[in-house]
């Protein structure tokens, strides 16, 4: 298995994909290493939040994902 990474909003445009599978284990540095160019910069921006298995992390740099985990990368919401 692997870590599933889900891109929301404009991040999906930058990634050219709604999701991606990356190898486990995965930490914040490992994630950024694999997201290049504008996508990596956008994900690193302070206002982008990160959820691990449906729970938003208070500090996304503390990410620690294992096999079967799901990461969601969340730009600011535009609301309903």
């Amino acid at each position, binding site marked *: 298995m692997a870590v599933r990474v*889900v891109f929301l909003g*404009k991040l999906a*445009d930058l990634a050219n994909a709604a999701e991606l599978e990356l190898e486990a284990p995965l930490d914040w540095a490992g994630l950024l290493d694999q997201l290049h160019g504008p996508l990596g910069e956008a994900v690193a921006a302070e206002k982008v939040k990160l959820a691990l*298995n449906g729970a938003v992390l208070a500090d996304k740099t503390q990410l620690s994902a294992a096999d079967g985990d799901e990461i969601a990368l969340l*730009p600011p*919401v535009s*609301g*309903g």
Partner: protein
Amino acid sequence: MARDVRLIDAPFEPASYVEQFTRAHPGLGGVCTFVGEVRSDDDVEALELSHYEPLTLAGMEDLADAALERFDLMGILILHRVGAMAPGEPIVCVSACARHRRDAIQAVDFAMDHLKSDAWFWKREKRGGTWSWIEPRDQDHADLARWQ
């Protein structure tokens, strides 16, 4: 059936949900309902709402619980469309029933302000054949401040 919260991925008829919801609460004093439609102004050809179900649905359920705690309600219904929509299609429906009208009206106002600003949705519009993402608006923060 105090809380009925759903994400809906196809066109829907709010009235049929509201009727069922109202019938489930006999003896209510009143029911207040707001239905929002995709506006047909400004040459918008289509609207697409993305969501992340583990957060989006859970957030709407928390919002329903917050309304139930804050107002004296018999029940609350929150429906939200996701996916691609055309102008004129219903996008959101909030209905609250209560023994006293002010609770029902305020609960709908409260839920709509929160749905429109801090719910987990990402929205893009198509104008002139081109899609563009909608940024958060300052007005949204003002709307939320009403309830703090």
